[in-house]
């Protein structure tokens, strides 16, 4: 359920300029509106694009979040690769075989 909340936050951030504005002005306030673990809050805050990818955040959400946080295209790809090197393969979601999705 937590990955769902991470993705929902990014979804709303990507599509709603009002949420983006609040995110800029009151990051902690926005984070508090979602049921996130401390690690997930840290990943959004920093941001830790690599670990978000490994957690299973869909790239169609993540690439826009990365761009919003200033990642150029190649830096975004490299951040995901670094995430895999550091944390291992993607844990769940669309980038794992269907039988291992949770």
């Amino acid at each position, binding site marked *: 359920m937590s990955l769902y909340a991470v993705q929902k936050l990014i979804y709303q951030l990507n599509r709603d300029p009002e949420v983006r504005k609040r995110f800029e002005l009151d990051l902690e306030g926005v984070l508090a509106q979602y049921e996130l673990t401390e690690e997930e809050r840290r990943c959004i805050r920093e941001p830790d694009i690599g670990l978000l990818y490994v957690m299973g955040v869909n790239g169609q959400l993540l690439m826009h979040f990365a761009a919003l946080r200033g990642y150029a295209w190649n830096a975004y790809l490299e951040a995901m690769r670094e995430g895999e090197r550091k944390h291992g393969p993607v844990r769940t979601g669309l980038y794992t*075989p269907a039988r291992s999705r949770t």
Partner: protein
Amino acid sequence: MSLVFAGVCSHAPGITGRSERADPAVRDAFYAGLGRMRLALEAQRPDVLIVIAAEHFANFFMNNMPSICVGMADQYEGPIEDEAWIRIKRTRVPGNAQLSKRLIETVMQDVDLAYAQEWKFDHGISVPLHFLTPRYDLPIIPVNINCQGPPLIPLQRCYEFGRALHRACEQMPERIALIGTGGISHWPATPDSGRINEAWDREFLERLLGNRREELLAYRDDQVWREAGQGGFEIRTYIAVAGATEGHTGELWFYAPIPIFAVGCTVAVMNLPHSSA
């Protein structure tokens, strides 16, 4: 009338957003293929263009995910992406709510649908329109097939949706054009972005353009995932077009892998009896 035009094309955001990083010769040939598609579309003088796309969390999320959703508004807006990132200026795009409603009511006799009276286009629709209706003067009816958040609609249901859409179009007086947009094999927005399985793509395109129903519906998602990536789930939009043009074959106007666009770039058009091209 029936469908006056049907085709398929790629929609990857890199097509516009990373244009300068592609091999210019291949890129320009692809753009020319899209330009040819635009002329063929215009030659049919359509009243409306239905775009069956696979969106990427612009409107629909896992809190309430329709398998198939049809737009029912008089205007839309897109692209939702950052304008500098996708390099397409955000604009209003005309729709036709009244025709949408008639089509939806008719298709619903055969296939369950969701509808939406608000819709923001993402690259799945905005990139094709940038090339095909650059003046945004042709009303659009957007259709989304969920290809992002499993469980995904089975392929045979996409084909059946296409058939039902065709039957509905036949009952309308308007001249209706149709495109399906999406990748074939690709691994977009992942570390494997740029990987393309050209042999898989060409086999798929043969099945599609031969409109070989059984062979199109033989794909399984676990196999597609392994061989064509999670982006390969977007074959659903192409298969819906095959259903809408059942019994007709098509022609491949352009295909080439362009890795920086993260997809095998495709332009293909179905041969329809009503079209005069």
